[in-house]
């Protein structure tokens, strides 16, 4: 039988204090749905596709595998937090300008991961991009455009430095 244990958690959601009563078996995607945040989506359910990516204390995690109870006291950021001031993040702009999505279902996870990548490697080369994003799947296979978007976003974030020469031409 499913446990009826409920637990109240307190955490920070996109910079604002938040609190929720959750079942101890519920995951972070379900937690976010309580707040009507649908950008993190469960797809493969096994942490293999990256559609449910959210940032917890600055680390990218799969929302489908992470129990909601485990984010008690943590800082949770989702795709919906990126344009809170009405301005798109440079990564979001780069995705639009390069046409780096089709159906859009994987896009929020992809964008969060790209932001995470650029935090660590402001000027990534193609191999770093492929490696860092290899846990994010796109069945529409918009991969070439996403790689372009990463380079463009790197430039937008840091316009003075020239981007690493791309070894891939698309």
């Amino acid at each position, binding site marked *: 039988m499913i446990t009826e244990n409920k637990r109240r958690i307190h955490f920070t959601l996109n910079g604002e204090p938040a609190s929720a009563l959750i079942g101890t078996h519920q995951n972070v995607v379900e937690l976010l749905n309580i707040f009507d945040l649908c950008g993190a*989506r469960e797809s493969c359910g096994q942490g*293999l596709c990256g559609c449910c990516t959210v940032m917890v204390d600055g680390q990218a995690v799969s929302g489908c595998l992470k129990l909601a109870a485990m984010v008690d006291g943590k800082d949770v950021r989702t795709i*919906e937090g990126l344009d809170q001031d009405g301005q798109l993040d440079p990564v979001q702009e780069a995705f639009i300008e390069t046409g780096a*999505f089709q*159906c*859009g279902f994987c896009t*929020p996870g992809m964008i969060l991961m790209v932001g995470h990548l650029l935090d660590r490697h402001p000027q990534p080369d193609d191999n770093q991009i492929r490696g860092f994003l290899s846990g994010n*799947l796109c*069945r529409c296979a918009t991969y070439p455009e996403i790689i372009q978007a990463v380079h463009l976003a790197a430039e937008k974030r840091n316009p003075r430095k020239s981007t690493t020469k791309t070894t891939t031409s698309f």
Partner: protein
Amino acid sequence: MKIKDANISHIDEVGRSLPRLEARAKVTGRAEYTHHVKLPGMLYGKIFRSTVAHGRILSIDTGAASAYPGVHAVITGQDVLKVIPEPYFGPAFHDQPILALDKVRYVGEAVAVVLAEDPHVAEMAAQLIEADYEELPAVYDEIEAMTSNVVVHDMLKPAGTFPDLKHLAGKRDTNIALDFHLKRGDAEAGFAKADHVLEHTFRTQQVMHTPLEPMVSLADARHDRITIYTASQSPSFVRLEIARLLGWSENQVRVKVPYLGGGFGAKLYIKLEALVTALSMLAKRPVKVSLTMEEQFYTISKHPTTFKIKSGVTKDGKIIARRCDVWWNGGAYADIGPRVTQKSGYTAAGPYDIENVDIESFALYTNRPPSGALRGFGIPQLVWAYESHIDLIARELKIDPLEIRRRNILREGRPHATGTIMRGAEIEAVLERLAQRMDWEKPFDQGSSTSDTSSTIRRGRGIAIGFKAVVAPTTSTALVTIAADGSVILSMSTVDMGQGSDTAMAQCVAQVLGIETEKVRVMNPDTDVTPYDMATLGSRSTFHMGNAVSMAARDAKNKLMALAREAGLPEDYDGPWRGIFEKRYGMQAGTIVGFGSYIPAYIPPDKSTGQSENVTAFWMIGATGVELAVDTETGHVSIERMISVVDCGTPLNPKIVETQLSGAAIMQLGFTLTEKMELDAGQVTNASFSDYKIPGFHDIPIVMENHMVDSVQPGAPFGAKGVGESSTFGVSPAIANAIHDAIGVRLTELPMRPETVLRALRAQQNNPLED
């Protein structure tokens, strides 16, 4: 009278690479998907599935599940009969029960459903259901199914819905859902005259679309009305089919479709919609069924095939006769398999000018998960065979692979095997552009000439070209409304699942009206409002819906001009449109509604010979060139360069078209190198991304090029035609041909995983790998 928006100078909207209209919604995570829809009082349904491939249901014990705390109800096929007495659905045959009745026909078939407010409760309780079956022998292979004593369906009932499938016959005691025959000239006489006769057999595997938004449907049934929210590529068909099942009229069924998180053919016709309808009617509450990624593998797939191809060739490489025998493994329910068999069947001889052609194409039932449409509608399976075959002919005759294609290519104005004269099909231009981009005339470095003789890397290159006819005859209709302030809404039932149809169709409307595309609002499909469209499939929307929306926009424009005349405005009025409404109605009031409806001409192929003077509204052409490296020590294939060339007419939005080209090619790369549904006694054993490998960032070719040849499709909106599938056609055979070029080994089955490559290589070296 000229009507134009005074606010902008004239721009060519068609041909502009503007971003998708819904771009901001998608990058902010706020785009709507059925996945997110919740209704008050909604129940979740979790499916209990068959564990045997073929069996009679002896009993279903739902006691423990019903007693589980929080369970609302447990529903079986017998319950469904209370609300839908004839619960069989399907686009070609009414062969699929909403929940299994009497028999199960594949592992994973839906047998019962648990309803609960909490999806976790429904999932737990579903595991408590127990079913007893009398197991029956099963048949899995398409060749065996031709003659097997195991008959999957006792009786076949044709649906009679679509005009191209009207001839399907009700039959007993056979697994053949459809047999298609094409005869042109005398193939046997051709073989007798030929200098060389070559025959090869090629096979393809069962694969799954795996849209990242798994299939999901939600129904809200009231006593005389039902609303269905569904991730469907065919809202109009869902409305028809649900109305038929319920014995209701179309206006009692409302189907709403937001954006789709991928479709690729998986979400076509009718999938979960009939089930959620029955469940909501029984529960008298809204019911949602969301499949898991695993469950998608039990729902629909791509046809495995066996294709035996035989050609008679003169000594100078002219193919004078060809015989094609194609067996399509349709799985337990026909879905749209008969259309795949027929429509793809008649192009089985390839884009070549062959005098004598004989085609036999069979759709077969087996005890596998059902097969349906998947990006290409059977064409990639055919091209795999005929383009591998022609490469083998070239090798046998010692003719260059490009040269043999040139000698046989089907040219404009020549008859296709159906007798239809080729028009607007740039087959030759596509082949020549590919040859040019590949630098085919220049010598190619195969790696053996390098100074490092111990290198295990061997390089090769290969090409392939295929073509496809569009499904015919089908209808699209659209509405273009102009509000009193001059703003424009396009209402159509084309589903944007990532291909960019909202944007491309808005561009057509904007072009006709002389306004900016960004000012056109596109309504998501809602069958109460958006008019009929056959479905979003087979790359038909650009041509069919493009014509319909352009007609609707012209109609709206004409009505606007008439309104201006009624209002007594001068003939040279070129002020804002709102001025026309204000003048006519004395305030900001009124609406203009423009309507467009399009169906192309079509002559069905003759039942015994497959001949027709007009078998398609247009042809799609795609060619692929590949340069790759094979590691002879591991069998690993690395795609160094992949070039796609297509004839897609004149692209409406070149950027979106290019994304379609590379996306489709990479998807087919997965079907070529890694993906395969593994079955053990009918059970899919790798129904998960951990064991079923779709392409990721590391799997894309190092260099990709996408090209469109200059082309203007006659009869098309602004010369454009469909493009969503064309770059899939040549991928698999181009790679097989390149592997052969690299290591001298021919692979005839997909996928070509490293192990397959290595085994074939070692077998050829008389040093086979152990099992």
